């Protein structure tokens, strides 16, 4: 039995109406990768924010190597050896890599900076993770995964003993994820304790040693990953057996007519010669790596980008949209992959967020009828099972899953014939994911053509009737029925043809 490097004892924390943590006691060992799982709102982030010095607990204590900590800020935690790699990366985008890595040191006192030394040191640290990023480069010029390495290096340079990763793979491609896993292995070998928060089961089985499950602010269980199967883990997480994660697929029938036909669609420099058909009542998956052109294809179809060549037909009629507005009025809507930045008006009410696309439907003489607007929103809140205090609540106050449902409501309000969903379940918990899968299936069964772009293979395989796999800007092939499996998709999405 090892002595834990980091311990949380009897931690409780309350936010006005919510008991976020209730008497949680948990220990993390040196040299282990410890997964922390739970649905959104289970208390994972709150616990890590307390350990990371962002929040103070109402009661209970945090111990590092047996010594009680009194953390007042994330800076305190970092200096004591607890690093935090945030989901939304927290780097200064306009500064160089080296300046970011040594931000704490540079901020202390008025001295002259020995940049040559700074760059050398940063380069050495980066090299130890196999990263060839130039320390002089601005952070804004780096990819997300490169930035993540910079964050890791920043934490490591302070001799961290504990490193917390909050959903680190959410924005990474498959190759980048592999690199991250190798880095985590290195950290583990160096004797660090890695705390790994994730929604993705496969990752936990891949790299974690132990797993702790939180639910409703309580610690449910800590187990060796090797000693528990996925089904029981999910069971512990949601508190009950989760049947029907994926809805039943559609019976294939070949005489169906296409609702959307895309031929030779090209956006110079991004993708070329993309052709596919979408049939009434089917869910067509788009698999492939991040950057393979899936998002851009969807955005071109609905007029957000200007095509370079190719044509699109809706119900056999040639369509040419100049902007998104045209697409909406023909019945094609697009769900953005970036819910917070491109989807929602976070500071506005649920009602205003749902009515935005078709304000005229709740207006007379261009004047909004607020009771009609609220009525519309209430209908969707009920229909979609959105958990919210009232339709006048700000969207910012909602959980990720509920925000996503608001976003989907906004699109469904215009009764679309084709929905293009870009990563519809990103960053939401498994309960809400299931609801969205069933919703997509219900839309399909009502005759709507559904496109689902996703980087999560299990949901592509579980939900879609057919799957188009993209590779570097082309469609490698379309799989159907029994052909849809993990190996086939990965082979098409990742492997060079030669």
């Amino acid at each position: 039995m090892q002595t834990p490097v980091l311990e949380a004892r009897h931690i409780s924390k309350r936010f006005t109406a919510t008991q976020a943590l209730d008497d949680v006691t948990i220990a993390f060992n040196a040299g282990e990768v410890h997964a922390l799982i739970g649905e959104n709102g289970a208390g994972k982030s709150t616990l890590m924010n307390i350990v990371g010095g962002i929040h103070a607990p109402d009661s209970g204590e945090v111990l590092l190597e047996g010594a009680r900590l009194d953390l007042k800020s994330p800076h305190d935690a970092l200096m004591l050896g607890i690093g935090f790699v945030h989901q939304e990366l927290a780097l200064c985008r306009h500064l160089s890599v080296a300046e970011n890595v040594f931000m704490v040191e540079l901020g202390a006192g008025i001295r002259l900076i020995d940049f040559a030394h700074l760059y050398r040191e940063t380069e050495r640290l980066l090299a130890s993770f196999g990263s060839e990023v130039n320390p002089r480069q601005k952070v804004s010029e780096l990819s997300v995964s490169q930035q993540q390495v910079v964050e890791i290096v920043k934490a490591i340079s302070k001799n961290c003993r504990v490193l917390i990763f909050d959903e680190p793979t959410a924005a990474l491609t498959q190759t980048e994820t592999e690199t991250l896993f190798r880095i985590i292995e290195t950290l583990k070998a160096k004797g660090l304790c890695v705390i790994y928060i994730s929604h993705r089961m496969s990752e936990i089985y891949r790299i974690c040693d132990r797993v702790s499950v939180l639910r409703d602010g309580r610690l449910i269980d800590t187990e060796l990953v090797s000693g528990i199967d996925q089904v029981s883990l999910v069971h512990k997480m949601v508190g009950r057996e989760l049947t029907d994660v994926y809805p039943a697929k559609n019976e294939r029938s070949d005489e169906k007519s296409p609702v959307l036909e895309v031929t030779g669609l090209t956006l110079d420099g991004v993708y070329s010669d993309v052709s596919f058909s979408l049939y009434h009542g089917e869910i067509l998956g788009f698999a492939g790596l991040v950057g393979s052109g899936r998002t851009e294809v969807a955005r071109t179809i609905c007029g957000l980008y200007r095509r370079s060549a190719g044509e699109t037909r809706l119900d056999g009629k040639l369509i040419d949209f100049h902007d998104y507005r045209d697409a909406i009025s023909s019945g094609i809507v697009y769900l953005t992959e970036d819910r917070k930045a491109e989807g929602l008006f976070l500071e506005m009410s649920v009602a205003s967020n749902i009515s935005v696309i078709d304000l005229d439907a709740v207006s007379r003489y261009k004047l909004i009828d607020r009771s009609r607007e609220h009525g519309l929103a209430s209908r969707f809140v009920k229909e979609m099972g959105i958990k919210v205090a009232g339709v006048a609540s700000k969207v910012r106050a909602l959980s990720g899953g509920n925000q996503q449902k608001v976003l989907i409501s906004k699109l469904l309000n215009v009764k679309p014939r084709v929905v293009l969903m870009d990563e519809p379940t990103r960053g939401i918990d498994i309960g809400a994911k299931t609801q969205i899968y069933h919703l997509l299936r219900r839309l399909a069964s009502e005759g709507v053509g559904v496109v689902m772009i996703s980087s999560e293979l299990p949901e592509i395989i579980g939900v879609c009737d057919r799957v188009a796999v993209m590779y570097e800007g082309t469609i490698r092939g379309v799989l159907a029925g029994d052909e849809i499996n993990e190996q086939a998709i990965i082979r098409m999405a990742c492997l060079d043809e030669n």
Partner: protein
Amino acid sequence: MAKVEVPPEHTAPDTSASTGGARMSIGKRLRILGGFREATTLVIMILICVVMSIISPYFMTANNIRTTVLSFSINGLVVIAMTVVLISGGIDLSVGAVMALVGVITGSLFLAKVNIWIAAFAGVGIGVVIGTLNGFFVTRVGLSPFIATLAMGNIARGASYVISRGMPLPLQSLPPDFKYIGRGMIGGTGIPFLILLFAIVVIAFDFLSRRSTIIRRIYYVGSSEKAARFSGINVTRLRMGVYILAGVLGAIAGVFSISRFNSATPYYADGVEMILISACVIGGASLNGGEGTIFGSILGIALLAVIQGSLILMDVSVYWQQLVTGLILLIAVSLDFLTHRKKKQ
């Protein structure tokens, strides 16, 4: 959807109340919270009025009230424009210069024997042109609104000096029906025509800002430009429209000013932008866009005018006025920050 059995989500526990009645009451409470900022401004205003009417018997007289309201009637038109610009997430630092330039151009045309109404119409046209240019540089060229309108403001201010050769234009010879706009009284009531006009415009714009689909779309754009674009809103056209509106209202204020003061001065309304922005922020607008109301901003500018008037009544040196304006701004914004922080928790 409802048929699917799924685990409950663990959001705030009070969300379990889903009955219509409970929703309404929570919704109402939120709306009151949302209007809180206007309420604070209103309370401060009432407090000052109560205290002042005790200190000075002259404060609550019709004469003083008329003078005070008149003092912000012209700037009040432009504060409406500034509010809309701020809601859209922009800023317009050229409105003061537009007021001066339009006054000078209208005045010069009149002195060149052009019919005053045609001259005024031409002045408003200048406002449209400047607003369009602002909108062009912001939306098409992609300059930040701060820089684009700062430059345009300097150009307009410079032009008004060039045209007037730096001297005020005496316009005592303006026809009486034009003078009526700025100096006339509504027969028998003792209410200046300008105040009536101002009140009508304010009420109309406040109503529109709460109800009209166009202004609602401006709120969307200010709240998140990208999300607006991904909701099929024509962001470019709306932002363009916002700067044109600012140009037009600035121009109308410029025309009113020469009617009221019988002269057109090139240095008129110099630095007025900062007062307008202060008024908007005191009234609840945010420089980040998406927030603010016409009513709030008018309250803001009225509050500043009342304070200024009070200081004069109390024989406090005019040099104190700017200092007090700064203090009020600081207090109002701090209050806003603190209440927002509380709400977020």
